[in-house]
């Protein structure tokens, strides 16, 4: 084949161009830290990365946030329940003491005023707030669910079948993170507050010691039983949240690794390749410089 000087120049030019193109690609990868930044550089990788970052990681983080929120709700619910349990246990002691029948009037008075205080604090527990939301009102979080008018306590929240706060924790799992007032304190008319009001009346108005040791004590036991069941329920839900959170965290690590495998560069490998490419480029430059110029012109007088 006949070779002309223009061909030599074009070959050098072409080689330099090809080298530069590779170097440009590699330096883009090195500076971004990623194998590809555009769909056409790796369509399948793009598809996978979009799925892993979006539907995978972002959704995973969202569920973790949901769970965090759920755990806050359940924790504060459990705290309130613990206080309620303590209060009911104290009421039970007081009822037992008052039913004894050997107490002086002053003692009964002291008991009755403590019962009254406990009633008020129980109403307070029923109206527990979390960042301005009443947690025992079902969906009625804007107003205190329990109203005490001095003689009765009325529940204004949603019933359990209609007031659950449902939180999604995985695409297939939802979980209520609240307990409604009726669930915790009993249905209207037979609720804990009514029992305490009845107890107060038995202490102050009817002085019915038999009732204190009988009905009231039985009712208090039933309330205590329900409260403990509620705590068990809350504990079980919190366990479920915690274990799901752990699973989500594991998945998060796995997804991040997966994404990294697809899109992150192998720094050592790429730098080696880049250096090799650079050497090739310099070699092409050097040979180009020595090839382009001389022709017979330089050697004829």
């Amino acid at each position, binding site marked *: 084949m006949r070779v002309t000087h223009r061909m030599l120049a074009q070959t050098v030019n072409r080689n330099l161009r090809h080298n530069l193109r590779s170097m440009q690609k590699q330096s883009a990868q090195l500076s971004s830290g990623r194998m590809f930044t555009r769909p056409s550089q790796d369509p399948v990788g793009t598809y996978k990365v*979009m799925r892993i970052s*979006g539907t995978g990681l972002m959704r995973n983080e969202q569920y973790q946030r949901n769970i965090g929120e759920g755990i806050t709700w359940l924790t504060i619910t459990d705290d309130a329940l613990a206080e309620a349990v303590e209060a009911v246990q104290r009421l039970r002691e007081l009822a037992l003491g008052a039913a004894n029948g050997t107490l002086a009037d002053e003692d009964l008075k002291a008991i009755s005023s403590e019962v009254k205080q406990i009633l008020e604090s129980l109403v307070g527990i029923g109206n527990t707030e979390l960042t301005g939301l009443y947690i025992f009102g079902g969906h009625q979080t804007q107003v205190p669910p329990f109203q005490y008018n001095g003689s009765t306590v009325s529940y204004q929240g949603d019933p359990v079948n209609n007031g659950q706060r449902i939180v*999604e924790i995985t695409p297939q799992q939802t979980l209520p993170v609240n307990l409604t007032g009726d669930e915790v304190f009993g249905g209207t008319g037979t609720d804990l507050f009514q029992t305490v009001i009845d107890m107060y009346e038995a202490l102050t108005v009817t002085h019915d010691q038999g009732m204190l040791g009988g009905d009231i004590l039985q009712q208090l036991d039933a309330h205590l039983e329900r409260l403990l069941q509620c705590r068990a329920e809350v504990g079980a839900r919190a366990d479920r949240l915690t274990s799901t959170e752990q699973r989500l965290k594991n998945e998060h690590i796995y997804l991040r690794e997966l994404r990294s495998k697809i899109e992150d560069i192998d720094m050592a490998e790429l730098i080696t390749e880049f250096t090799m490419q650079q050497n090739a480029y310099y070699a092409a430059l050097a040979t180009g410089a020595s090839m382009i110029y001389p022709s*017979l012109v330089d050697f004829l007088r």
Partner: protein
Amino acid sequence: MGSTFGSFEIGRRALHAQQKGAQVTGQNIANANTEGYSRQLVLMKALVPPAAPGVETPPGYGVAISDIRRIKSEFYGDQIMKSTTLQNYWERVRETLDGIEIIFQEPEETGINTVLNEFFDAWQDLSVNPESHAVRLSLREQAEALTGLVRDIYGRLEELKFDVRKELQATVTQVNTLAAEIADLNKKITYLQALGKKSNELLDQRDLCLQELSKLVNIRVNQKASGSLEVLAGGCILLHDDRHFDLEIRDEGGQLAVYNEIGARLSIREGDGGIAGMLQSYNTVFPRYQGALNNLVSTLVNEVNDLHKGGYVFDGPTTGINFFTPVDPDLGAEALQFSISDEIKTDLNNIAAASQADHPGDGSNALKIARLREALIMEEGTATFHDYFRGVMADLGVEGREAERMSLAMERVMESLQEKQESISGVSLDDEMLNLVQYQHAYNAAARFLNVLDEMLGVLFSEIGS
């Protein structure tokens, strides 16, 4: 034995021929770097006298220039034009797809994929905190970000599409200019040929014009005996002899087509040069990705609104509110109409998180909307919004990759064809220097020959005449 002065004639012809040789060598060297120049070769022939019976054959009359030949391979010329056409098509399509990729910015964190996920995340947040003003505000901001991004992307696609149209207009003008130029060269070349002459430079110029033309459109060239050319573009006449037919663009209901001035529609297919790449971009590529956005938007708006209308505002009985402004294909591109409804814009409490009236703590309707992320709604119930969009981006990637691969492959083919062509037609300075030295020596020798003849005649005249 020839005549005495016949030998002078041999010398004269030799000087003339060698000088011509040096002159052509000079022309070659001068044009060593001229684009489209084909090296020329001086062909000499020995002049032989007719043989006569009984007479000793004389040594000949000397030398004559038989032709100054343009060294060019028609085969490679044709191949180069065909590959040029193909390469420019893929290069142009690739340019469009590149532009679209840059606009979509996937898989970056600023793309629709991420923002759409953030939108659904915001609904999740609302489902957990339906009472929170801050969460409602953040949801509205996410929705603004999503609608704004989609409108922006669509608008930029529209701008890019408009640019392609302008470029097509300019390119068609360029074709017309080249056609006029070739027609003009046809005229000059046929004129010279009629006079029995030829100009290698004009032929080179015409080849260069054809080469330029083949970048833009698929041409077929028919050589005529007169030296003139007939050129067809897309199967329609573009020029013959000194007459050319201007091309023009016509808009046929949003689809562009190219016609020549006598009303014939050019048949332009995949691979048919830069113009085909622009037509493909304008008529097919942009509508495909813009259509995908419209499809995504109209479905998303309808699905979100359907659920949202079934929900209730914060702590109140009002229902039936649209979250997004409903889109109507009759009013133009759905993607450009993508926006939040006025009700939501004016009052955050109108975001219907609850499934029941007067249930401020109910986030179940928000959860229903958040679950649209998982719902198989697109592609006849086989894909989620994200699956669909990811699929579109993967298609964009595959298409872009294909165009890049084809364009690079054609570039390689072109390079090797051009190298072959250059190998045949290119000027080698070494060759030319050798030729020059040869011509110089031959010229010197011919001059010396005349000198010797002169001396011989001098001897003859002086010896005999004295």
